[in-house]
């Protein structure tokens, strides 16, 4: 293994050398300071600007038949709903899905970047990349940008040679392997439904209904989640979109309006 001695080299050559060789190295090492009023706090400010944006609900869980992935579709800017039809489940390649929570631009860009890296791995090694490998690639990229204000809370779900795989990766550099995850401001509500209804040996329909219901309950209680509950299934042959139900209609399907008793009814008064 070649030793990494970049730390030992000095910028200035010790013995006299030709000017052409040391062009670009004659000046003392310096780095550019950002032009800002608050040198100590500007990075934190950049993070805070993006941070409130994790208004969403996404979830994924492993069960007997593969991985079930579900998400809502609302994008909010503070109190304003900017869109009710955002695609939060990103198709990295035909057998791997990523979920979006946090900054939309960050998630879209880095997931596409991950897709590119996975394809390059396939071409170089003549076999598909594992979910472990793909999530590690993304986690390492995000770790190197730690502290710069990226906001990404994603789950990588896929099916590889070892079976179904699910990893949680975030912009702080964390990477966790687990059977059930939910990410976003609506995640506490989704966890409540998901944890109480989960069984390993569910059928695909039962698992899809559990995922749909968990997202619906999160959209009901959380102001920053709503729109359409999309449910995807990842099986041995890749992912398939199972449903995309509007949660406004789901509510009246789960809790239909019942006619209530009349409290006060107007009657015609006979003329005196």
């Amino acid at each position, binding site marked *: 293994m070649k030793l990494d001695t970049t730390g030992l080299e000095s910028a200035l050559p010790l013995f006299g050398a030709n000017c052409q060789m040391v062009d670009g190295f004659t000046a003392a090492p310096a780095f550019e300071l950002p032009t800002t009023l608050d040198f100590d706090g500007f990075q934190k400010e950049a993070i805070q600007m993006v941070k409130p944006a994790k*208004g969403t609900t996404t979830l994924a869980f492993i069960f007997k038949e593969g991985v079930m992935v579900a998400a*809502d579709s*609302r994008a*909010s800017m*503070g*109190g*304003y*709903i900017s869109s*009710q039809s955002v695609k939060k489940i990103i198709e990295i390649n035909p057998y791997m899905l990523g979920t979006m929570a946090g900054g939309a631009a960050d998630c879209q860009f880095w997931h596409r970047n991950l897709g590119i890296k996975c394809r390059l791995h396939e071409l170089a090694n003549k076999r598909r990349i594992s979910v472990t490998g793909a999530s590690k690639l993304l986690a390492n990229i995000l770790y190197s940008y730690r502290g710069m204000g990226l906001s990404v809370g994603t789950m990588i779900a896929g099916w590889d040679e070892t079976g179904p795989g699910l990893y949680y990766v975030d912009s702080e550099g964390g990477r966790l392997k687990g059977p059930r995850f939910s990410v976003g*401001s609506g995640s506490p509500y989704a966890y409540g439904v998901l944890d109480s209804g989960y069984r390993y040996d569910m059928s695909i329909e039962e698992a899809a209904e559990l995922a749909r219901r968990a997202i619906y309950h999160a*959209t*009901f*209680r*959380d*102001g*920053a*989640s*709503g*729109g359409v509950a999309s449910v995807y299934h990842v099986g041995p042959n890749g992912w398939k979109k199972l449903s995309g139900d509007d*949660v*406004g209609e789901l*509510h*009246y399907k789960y809790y239909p*309006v019942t006619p209530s008793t009349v409290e006060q009814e*107007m009657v015609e008064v006979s003329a005196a």
Partner: protein
Amino acid sequence: MSIFEYNGSALVAMVGKNCFAIASDRRLGVQLQTIATDFQRISKVHDRLFIGLSGLATDAQTLHQRLMFRHKLYQLREERDMKPETFASLVSALLYEKRFGPYFCQPVIAGLSDGDKPFICTTDSIGAKELAKDFVVAGTAGDSLYGACEAMFKPDMEPEELFETLSQALLASVDRDCLSGWGGHIYVVTPTEVKECTLKGRMD
């Protein structure tokens, strides 16, 4: 989020032909979490006068209790109901009393004054009255409500048409606001009757 957006609300009142309608959403939340979906924001002062209070729910409740108290005293002394214009001045005065520590509310007052002429008005949190001839809005969904009402309003609408228009404007606006919605409440008041309806809306 600001203190006015802590609980979330949407309120609108619109004028029709010898009638008015006042509508609100039904959500009570704590920032992003929804606590209740049947919160009453509009209350009856008397048969021809309604007040809706948007903003911080605790201040809305306290202000409502103080206004009911003052109105009951007025009824005992004057032996008649308060006119909407007078009530609006009362609200304005009560709010300005707390000029340097205000109630974080924005009231919407709607009533039928002399000659069955509809009267609507809103004030800001320290009592500046804004009288309007067509509609007034308040709450976190206020900006959306302005747009929807401006587009859908027509002068001299009959009660049925007014009900339809106001319901559509309210539901369209709260569907663009994270902090309000979860159904709607609407009162349509004419000189002879008061119609109260609950609106079925998106529950997300």
